[in-house]
């Protein structure tokens, strides 16, 4: 399953669909990290609004994406975690510790812009 990755200036925006299998998530992780390298991106927004289940594998993959991208010197913000998904993730024990999150795409972009304002 192809995930649309949109380039927006120095940032990348990846939109995850519902019903991603483990293989899809692994492809995504690889594709996204490759794109960060290719475009020398400074920030990545991963939009998970459409995901209606975030189990341990999906949560861990998201966290790994953020950590890998951080090693490239870029920042990741996860946006759009649905309230019931957030509830289930906490019950499951997956809290995405150390990973930035924001309410939606707009707030995620604002977070990255604010973050990089001081560096430029």
């Amino acid at each position, binding site marked *: 399953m192809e995930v649309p990755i949109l380039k927006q200036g120095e940032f990348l925006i990846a939109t995850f669909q519902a019903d*991603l299998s483990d293989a899809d998530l692994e492809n995504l992780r690889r594709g996204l990290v490759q794109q960060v390298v290719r475009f020398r991106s400074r920030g990545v927004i991963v939009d998970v609004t459409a995901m209606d289940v975030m189990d341990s594998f999906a949560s861990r993959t998201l966290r790994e994406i953020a950590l890998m991208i951080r090693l490239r010197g870029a920042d990741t913000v996860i946006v759009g975690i*649905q309230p019931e998904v957030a509830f289930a993730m906490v019950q499951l*024990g997956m809290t995405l510790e150390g990973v930035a999150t924001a309410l939606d795409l707009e707030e995620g972009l604002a977070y990255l812009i604010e973050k990089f304002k001081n560096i430029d």
Partner: protein
Amino acid sequence: MPAGKIHVAINSDQDIVLARQKGRALAAELGFSAVDATFVATAISELARNIVAYARRGEITLQAVRGSSRQGIVVVASDDGPGISDIGQALRDGFSTSGSLGLGLPGVRRLMDEFEINSRPGRGTTVTVKKWRQ
């Protein structure tokens, strides 16, 4: 109440997705809240993941049940895999032997209302969980 059992054979990561979709659909059909339907779908995803990770193949069955005054869903995850030698350990947070998961069973127990596990080394594992409609 929807009659009969829904059987989902679990052989691959695609089947994990299928099983949780069917679980969510059944929960919605029974009038579960969005939160509870998500809990059921997430628990099914973890149980199916355990099957793929540890036993390679098995089955998830879903069934609507009626208690004395309430309706619920029973999920049974069964396999003929290697089994669990120390169930107490497997139910503690952070324990994993496959390297691919680590918070499965304790998390599933917190997501659902009732939890039962039967497993013997070499004889496979059966996990039965229930969620009642609030």
